[in-house]
């Protein structure tokens, strides 16, 4: 297992070096390798699937431009996901400014799924939208994507302890927001 990890790290390193030398195909391989995880990081921070797509594209573009400054001996994933997190936070801030200008009293809602009838999903969306972006990111990255507190801290540029306490507060806030909700049973 560790041999496989080491070989994939070595392969990634050679792709990074080739991409730094201007090899477009090597960069495309890095995109292919990391885009799913990058999407998950962005999706944890922004509110909609469409924004996550935009953030992923912005993030890869930033990464491409900054590739010359990356040291190939560092873990590429951690560096890339930090860029993704920053791109997502930028997008959230831009959206906030726009929403504040356009709809001052409404809560930004995630994209509408036409087939959605599940009340829990709707309530969850609303509750998650009410959390701060950092708390939402921490709870999704930890509980859904399985990142560690340390990885989340590195991504969001906060101490590990802050990530830990953000997670605690996010869970408490979600519990409070959903406390009156009981999922409908099959009998209802």
């Amino acid at each position, binding site marked *: 297992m560790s041999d496989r990890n080491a070989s994939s790290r070595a392969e990634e390193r050679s792709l990074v070096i080739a991409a730094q030398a201007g090899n*477009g195909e090597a960069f495309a391989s890095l*995109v*292919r390798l990391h*885009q799913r995880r990058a999407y*998950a990081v962005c999706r944890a921070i922004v509110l909609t699937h469409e924004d996550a797509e935009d953030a992923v594209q912005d993030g*890869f*573009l930033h990464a491409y*431009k900054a590739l010359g400054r990356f040291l190939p001996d560092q873990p590429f994933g951690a560096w890339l996901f930090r860029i993704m997190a920053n791109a997502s936070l930028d997008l959230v801030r831009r959206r906030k400014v726009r929403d504040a200008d356009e709809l001052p009293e409404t809560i930004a809602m995630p994209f509408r799924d036409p087939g959605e009838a599940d009340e829990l999903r709707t309530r969850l969306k609303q509750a998650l939208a009410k959390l701060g972006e950092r708390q939402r990111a921490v709870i999704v990255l930890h509980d*859904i994507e399985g990142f560690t507190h340390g990885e989340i801290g590195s991504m969001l540029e906060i101490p590990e302890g802050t990530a830990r306490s953000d997670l605690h507060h996010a869970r408490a806030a979600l519990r409070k927001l959903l406390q009156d909700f009981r999922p409908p049973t099959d009998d209802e």
Partner: protein
Amino acid sequence: MSDLNLFGDDETTRGMRGLYAAPSGQAYWNELESRIMARVAEVELGWWTEFDRWLKPALFTAAALVIMAGVAMFRTGQSRNNADLEDLFAPTSVAGAPVEATARPTLQGPRDAALRFILSR
């Protein structure tokens, strides 16, 4: 993994997984990759890429030129000062005041002609 056990089961976590699930079809990821690479290609084709490539060497050259010009100016100023000092302290080779050569005026006009006549006698 999650402590969000709100309803006695992992309902919330499952709900969140559903909300945050990434698209699963390979076609979606191929398409996203194409979009990302298209944006990267836009950056590569831009004039600023060429500009960016030349920016660093140009800055280094400009910095070197400024330093060289500064050194040259400093040296010129210093040699000028030295020359001025040498002039100031150099011994003067004058034995007396400089002689001013004056031309003897030639006598002209009717008065001068009269004077010339008297002197010739």
